[in-house]
């Protein structure tokens, strides 16, 4: 996925000289995850900028650049370090269109490598996506495959509204082979070819017995769990990779749940007021009569992400997903 993201950035910066990159250690080293590698050399230090260490300042100045008419892409180094910028994101990036009769949205992409599973120190493994989904005015998306990563990043850059671009860092290095070919995404237009990627879910595995709804690093785990369910009890689970966290693809979610009659939501973030709650509510509200069982949730716990020796205890595992699925199936 890292290569795909890097490729998308190269393409976007080539295509449109309004695109600029800001962040901590993004230029000289190409970012702590190397997503921005090579861009400084190619596009120069006016457009690829190592900023001072100040997240609110980074997002805040990016908003100013956006007002001017540039297309800033911000990298937040790690998930929990987005919190100092929370105010600028919630209060300004999210509300600039609203304050300007939609004439001057704070067009920008905020890239956030997120989630656990990489044995990182404290505060390098948070999953803050629900905070952004609850803050009106943002688009929140999360790719899972390298192909989606590239296309969605290009679509996000082309999107007029601010996009929180969640990157599941645990699968950064997965699936290198799939680096996608060029597509027809055009920058500077909301009708770019990739726009629908920013609001529609994808079926990661077909099935008619149970809908497993998830996003990010848990998608491959859910696919694996689906394999276990098939082997163990001949259940065909459909895995829905949401891609868009806000807005949710309510049609894909409810139709999958209704078609299967049973649904399970999986994510890493803490359970209470997480995306699982929203998805579960949407399903019950709309298709309860089609359900054979309440929607299940397999999520992180309502605790701080643990020190990494215990992160496997926190993270939804294939076993926990299978257990959650069995609970729904055996209701």
């Amino acid at each position, binding site marked *: 996925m890292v290569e795909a993201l890097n490729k998308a950035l190269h393409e976007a910066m080539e295509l449109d000289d309004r695109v600029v990159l800001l962040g901590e250690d993004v230029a000289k080293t190409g970012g702590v995850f190397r997503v921005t590698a090579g861009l400084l050399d190619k596009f120069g230090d006016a457009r690829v900028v190592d900023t001072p260490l100040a997240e609110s*300042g980074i997002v*805040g100045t990016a*908003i*100013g650049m956006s007002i001017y008419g540039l297309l800033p892409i911000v990298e937040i180094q790690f998930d929990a370090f987005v919190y*100092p910028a929370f105010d600028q994101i919630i209060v300004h990036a999210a509300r600039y269109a609203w304050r*300007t009769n939609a004439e001057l949205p704070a067009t920008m992409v905020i890239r956030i490598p997120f989630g656990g599973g990489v044995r990182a120190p404290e505060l390098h493994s948070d999953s803050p996506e629900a905070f952004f989904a609850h803050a*009106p005015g943002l688009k929140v998306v999360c790719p899972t495959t390298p192909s989606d990563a590239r296309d969605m990043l290009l679509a996000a850059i082309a999107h*007029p509204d601010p996009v929180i671009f969640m990157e599941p860092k645990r699968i950064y290095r997965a699936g290198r082979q799939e680096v996608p070919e060029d597509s027809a995404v055009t920058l500077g237009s909301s009708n770019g070819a990739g726009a629908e990627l920013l609001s529609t879910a994808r079926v990661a595995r077909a099935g008619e017995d149970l809908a497993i709804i998830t996003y990010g690093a848990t998608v491959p785990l859910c696919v694996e769990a689906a394999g276990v369910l098939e082997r163990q009890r001949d259940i065909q689970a459909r895995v829905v990779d949401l891609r868009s966290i806000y*807005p949710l693809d309510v049609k894909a979610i409810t139709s999958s749940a209704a078609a299967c009659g049973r649904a399970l939501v999986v994510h890493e973030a803490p359970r209470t007021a997480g995306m699982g709650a929203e998805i579960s509510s949407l399903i019950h509200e709309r298709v309860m009569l089609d359900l054979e069982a309440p929607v299940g949730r397999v999520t992180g716990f309502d605790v701080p992400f643990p020190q990494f020796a215990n992160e496997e205890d926190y993270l939804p595992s294939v076993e926990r997903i299978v257990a959650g699925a069995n609970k729904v199936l055996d209701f």
Partner: protein
Amino acid sequence: MSAAEVLRVMGDGKSLEDRAVPEGLGEKDLLELFRWLVILRTFDERAVALQRQGRIGTYPLYWGEEGTQAGALYACQEGDWVFPTYRQNSIGILRGVPVATILGWIRGYGGPAGFYNPRDYRVAPICVPIATHLPHAVGLAWAAKIRNDGTASLAWFGDGATSEGDFHEAMNFASVFKVATVFFCVNNQWAISTPVTRQMATSTIAERAAAYNMPGIRVDGFDPIACWKATRDALERGRAGEGPTLIEAYCYRLGAHGTADDPKLYRDDAETERWRPLEPVGRMFAFLSRLGVLDESTAEGYQQEAKRMVADGVKQLESIEQPGQDVLFDYVYSSGPPWTFQEGLAELESMSRQPEVEPPTPSPGPNTGDVEFPREP
């Protein structure tokens, strides 16, 4: 000039002597600048009256601070962007924003009845949360620098705002990237009830510029010409690639924090009265009269014109209907509404509409800061 020294051009006709009008400000400019002051003053006084009549909401008056606004704006080029706070709520009218739109905003209208397109006027939306607009001003000038087009930015903010982290981060980014931003601090010595002496340990705000290797200039905030001069110099510096400047416009908040605030709770009226004679409108009139540039009847003409302008705006405001329910949803995204909005609007449209509640008639009394709080009966 030491950090504590204050740049001043206009005397007060008594102990403070007049200085030479700085180069670049001809007679026409002086008159135009005065005309701007009059427009701002007229708007401000009318807005307070409208609030008292319950026709607009809580209003953060700026009586006395007209010079910090008009002086700084007059120093800008048309293409320069300015970033106001609630205290510079009507600065936009000097760049062509309709008076009715500003009044609409204060009346609690959203959508085009209360907001404008900032690009049309190079005036950012009025910023309510303290200091958060400062990085925007920096980002804008930084972008202009990347594009090498000579656009500068100017942001107003209060003495209280200097305590926020965003002030620091903005000052730091601006100085590291040497962008053409003017940080225009209106030190009116009060942040609601908190005096500037409790806000910081330095005796001036200007000296805080040292932390950013940035010039810090102190001017008399009641002197529009001094405000103009400092801003003009700062903009030139910025455009020459020499980076940002911090200007401290030292003055005093002569009015309440807002129409819901009662300063008697926390400060002495006598102190306020000592500062009042320095207020900019009367003082500039007297100064220009001493220079022989302005006479009573010209000033009267400005006033009539300003009154008409504001009165027309008020009339226009009254002709504008309260925004419909769709205003909640219409402008949140510029990329088209998500399905959640369609459902929300449908829910709303099935309801009988609540008529707008008029803003409550304010009663003097307990201090409620920003909000005209509905009183219990």
